[in-house]
């Protein structure tokens, strides 16, 4: 039987850096890098930077609490390994997707989601107008009016 397929993990935003390099030490540059997955970075961010508990963080990433704990443990293990052994850390890969944002087209007044965070494409998919704006969650008249908009 093929292994059970993994649920993609939701990541709020990409890290601002691509990784970390050790300082000092012998031949640190030549040592191989440890690959920290994007979901592991996100787990660390939610837990230790945003101070969420595992339950809350698991909900934010769209995975179960035990799965979250596993991802988080793996992140800590990798970081400890790179500290002790002096390996570089590269933040890349993983099975993730990015939370899309609702946009509003000022031309045809339609609303659309923007699923690919990597490309900053805000062209209206209906009329092709570039005059669109992201809808902020704090806006008083935010939301697409449908249930999907939270």
């Amino acid at each position: 039987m093929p292994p059970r397929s993994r649920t993609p993990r939701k990541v709020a935003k990409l890290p601002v850096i691509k990784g970390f390099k050790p300082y000092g030490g012998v031949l640190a540059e030549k040592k191989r890098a440890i690959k920290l997955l994007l979901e592991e970075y996100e787990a660390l961010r939610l837990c230790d930077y945003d101070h969420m508990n595992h339950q809350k963080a698991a909900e934010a990433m769209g995975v179960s609490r035990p799965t979250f704990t596993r991802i988080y443990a793996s992140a800590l293990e990798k970081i400890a390994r790179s500290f002790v052994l002096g390996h570089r850390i590269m933040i890349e890969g993983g099975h993730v997707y990015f939370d899309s944002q609702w946009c509003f087209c000022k031309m045809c007044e339609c609303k659309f989601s923007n699923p690919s965070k990597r490309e900053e494409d805000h062209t209206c998919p209906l009329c092709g107008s570039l005059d669109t704006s992201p809808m902020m969650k704090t806006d008083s008249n935010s939301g697409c009016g449908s249930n999907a908009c939270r």
Partner: protein
Amino acid sequence: MKYAITSRGKSLDARIDIHFGRCEYIVIYDLETKGWEFIPNPYKELDEGVGPMLVELLHEKGISRIVSGSFGINIKDLLDSKHMQMIIPKDNNISVSSIIEMIENR
């Protein structure tokens, strides 16, 4: 680029369906070939889980953009994870042919 447009009837003059999961028909419009086809919604009569099943079907057909009057509460995460875009036109009574016209002229 393939679009899926929910439709209330089996004609291009029909208006778009305001419900994604329980729409009557789906128009699949291919921007490259300018061709379109109607498929009846196979899950319309089911009690639950309609949205995710329909997303799966549309994903297999290579659709990346969905136009509908509204989407259900749980569907955004699934569509995001499959990189499918949701589009909600301003007017719920707009016809499928007007949508296709807008897409072609964009």
